[in-house]
């Protein structure tokens, strides 16, 4: 079973890999549905308000009506949502730095957020809620224990319930797949082998002679490339969509080629032998793919910060988001509580069950009625 086949068994490949067009289509669908839902929810709320306005307004009504914006709801577009998600991903990195969690945890949390917002809209669930839960989940999946109460305290202005409220929501949004394959360890592996190649005579591929021509001054270049590539992986790889379009190995190679393109090209050519036509074709294709990935990574440089104009736009977007949120989904903690207390079973079901029970008692069947097939 080759390395590639083993990667194909991962959930990251099976569920979370998309072509750019399909990813965009998915986001558009999500946005459209969410916008329609927001409008419908606002409509319902307005009707409720007009109905209750005649009566004495209860405290709850006042609170609810105050959240309803006037006029036609102006919803976010897909691009606007993406910008906001990117902004909140940066926020997540900052929060992670504040909590002193390792890079893996931050990276996993960001992937959770990104994956979640493919099938959910910011208008439905606000990212400030989701990102806390995502970060908390990431500490678990990356085996970095963080006590929940401590976690909530360290974030500030957060209760443990706030973190847990969207727990199942996020899990479902992630389709119950918590495994994220990162390129960090891959980079360590590549650097490790490059250093070994620089030092001594080891064979690059199985069954090949060990002597290969090496680029000049390779040892120092590997060291320099390591740091730069790591920076790309820590920021650019997380803030762009590369995880959805490329495999960790390709992302790692792309970051390496951004750090030292000559070295990376030499390495890849060594690794992908061109013995025959198909192998040559494969090498060409890998190089192309890595090149495209590198282009994508370059779009967000590691040191780049949002410019003043962008910041202004973002704050405007945040305000816009505030106006077009789904009023039914704002209070996640309350919703979670209501769900947990189990008033979900409505009266009809209870009545039906009671009737069935009586019926079976009448028939005096010792073992109850026949089991119904669903």
């Amino acid at each position: 079973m080759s390395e590639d086949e083993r990667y194909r068994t991962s959930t990251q490949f099976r569920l979370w890999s998309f072509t750019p067009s399909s990813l965009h289509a998915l986001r558009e669908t999500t946005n459209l549905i969410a916008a329609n839902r927001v409008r419908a929810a606002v409509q319902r709320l307005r009707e409720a308000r007009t109905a209750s306005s005649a009566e004495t307004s209860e405290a709850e009504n006042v609170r609810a009506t105050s959240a309803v914006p006037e006029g036609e709801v102006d919803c976010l577009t897909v691009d606007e949502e993406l910008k906001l998600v990117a902004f909140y991903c940066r926020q997540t990195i900052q929060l992670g730095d504040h909590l002193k969690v390792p890079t893996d945890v931050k990276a996993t949390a960001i992937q959770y957020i990104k994956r979640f917002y493919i099938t959910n809209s910011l208008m439905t669930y606000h990212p400030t809620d989701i990102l806390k839960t995502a970060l908390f989940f990431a500490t678990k999946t990356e085996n970095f224990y963080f006590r929940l109460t401590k976690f909530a305290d360290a974030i500030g202005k957060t209760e443990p319930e706030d973190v847990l409220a969207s727990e199942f929501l996020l899990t479902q949004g992630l389709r119950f797949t918590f495994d994220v394959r990162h390129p960090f360890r891959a980079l360590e592996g590549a650097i490790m082998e490059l250093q070994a190649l620089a030092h001594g005579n080891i064979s690059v591929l199985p069954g090949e002679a060990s002597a290969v021509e090496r680029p000049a001054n390779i040892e120092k270049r590997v060291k320099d490339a390591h740091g730069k590539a790591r920076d790309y992986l820590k920021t650019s790889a997380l803030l762009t969509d590369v995880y959805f379009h490329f495999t960790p190995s390709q992302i790692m190679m792309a970051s390496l080629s951004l750090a030292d393109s000559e070295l990376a090209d030499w390495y890849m050519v060594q690794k992908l032998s061109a013995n025959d036509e198909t192998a040559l074709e494969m090498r060409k294709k890998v190089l192309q793919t890595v090149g495209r990935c590198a282009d994508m990574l370059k779009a967000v440089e590691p040191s780049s910060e949002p410019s003043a104009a962008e910041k202004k736009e973002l704050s405007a977007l945040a305000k816009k988001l505030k106006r077009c949120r789904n009023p039914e989904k704002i209070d996640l903690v309350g919703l979670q509580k209501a769900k947990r207390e189990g008033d979900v079973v409505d009266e009809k079901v209870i009545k039906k069950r009671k009737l069935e029970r009586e019926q079976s008692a009448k028939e005096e069947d010792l073992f109850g009625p026949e089991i119904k097939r669903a």
Partner: protein
Amino acid sequence: MFRNGVSKLVDNPSDDICPVCKSNRYLNPSLQFLINPECYHKMCSTCVDRIFTSGPAPCPVPHCGKTLRKRGFHKAFFADLAIEREVDVRKRVGAVFNRRHDEFETLLDWNNYLEEVEGLVFDIVEGDVKTRTIAEEKLRMYKEANKGVIEENTRVGLEEGELERRREKAEREAARQRRLAVLREEEEEKADMLKTRQSVLDRLANEDVDANTIAAQAQKIILKKTSARRALKDIPIQSNGSAMDAGLTIRGLKKKEAPAPEKPYDPFGGLDLTPARYVLQDHYENEWLGGAKKDTRHMAGGYSLQEYYARTMFEAFSGLGVFIEDEVTDRNQQPQAVVAPAVETAAAVQAAVSKTKFERNMELDDVF
């Protein structure tokens, strides 16, 4: 059926009363019932003595009238006389139809034969008078026609029983011999020890040699004797085993094959996981790992650097040749084809969500 049986046992007075002389177990606690396999009518032993001591007489049970002899009476083994009778019939038929499995060429033939015999037994046990006579006739005919074969098989069966008995006896005898040998040996050893000790003491008393050398010599002698005894002991056991083999030839034993040595367990079930894009080295230079290599806190717990090497190298090249652009395109055909429908009401949105929003088999309802 069970209940019927119980009530019969409890209510039926015939269990305690002789049907011939009507004497009662209450009056005669030593009352014993006997039967004769001619007609299976039971009567008490007193009646048997009284009626049949002076020679053969007809059965005293009304409407039976079979001539019985005293010699044929015996105590019923089973309380249910129908079973007693069936067992007797089986014994009789089995003595005639005593063919063996290895006489048949195929299993099917053997099974057919068994079925035929079973049918005959059933006819005799359960059939009415007519079928019973026919079956008995068949049995008699077969017995006459195959006299030689039947006798031969009976002889073989007896011989086998005899062989089995002999083998068991030989085994018991061998075990007894072994026990005796062990006892004898222990005694000899003890006597030897005493003798050697005595001689050492004598030499210490009489000769003018260093005590330590004498003790060492004595030790050597003891060791030599023990090893000699051990060598002796091995031989008789071997000869014993071969003797037993020579006396016994058990037929029909299958040739024994030494079981193939078990292969080491492979957790991957035969998957070939040798890397294709790199050669895993036993050792890599890595400044980050330099400390861990020498740190007992790392290594004492069983931390294996090789595991780390294997994992990082695998991740470096796992998926390098996977092109998501190509491979995912055909997978995503269906969701791409779905065009977001123009929906107005919330219910329609709900319906649309469950249909369009989640491609493949992912069903996602609203959590809250």
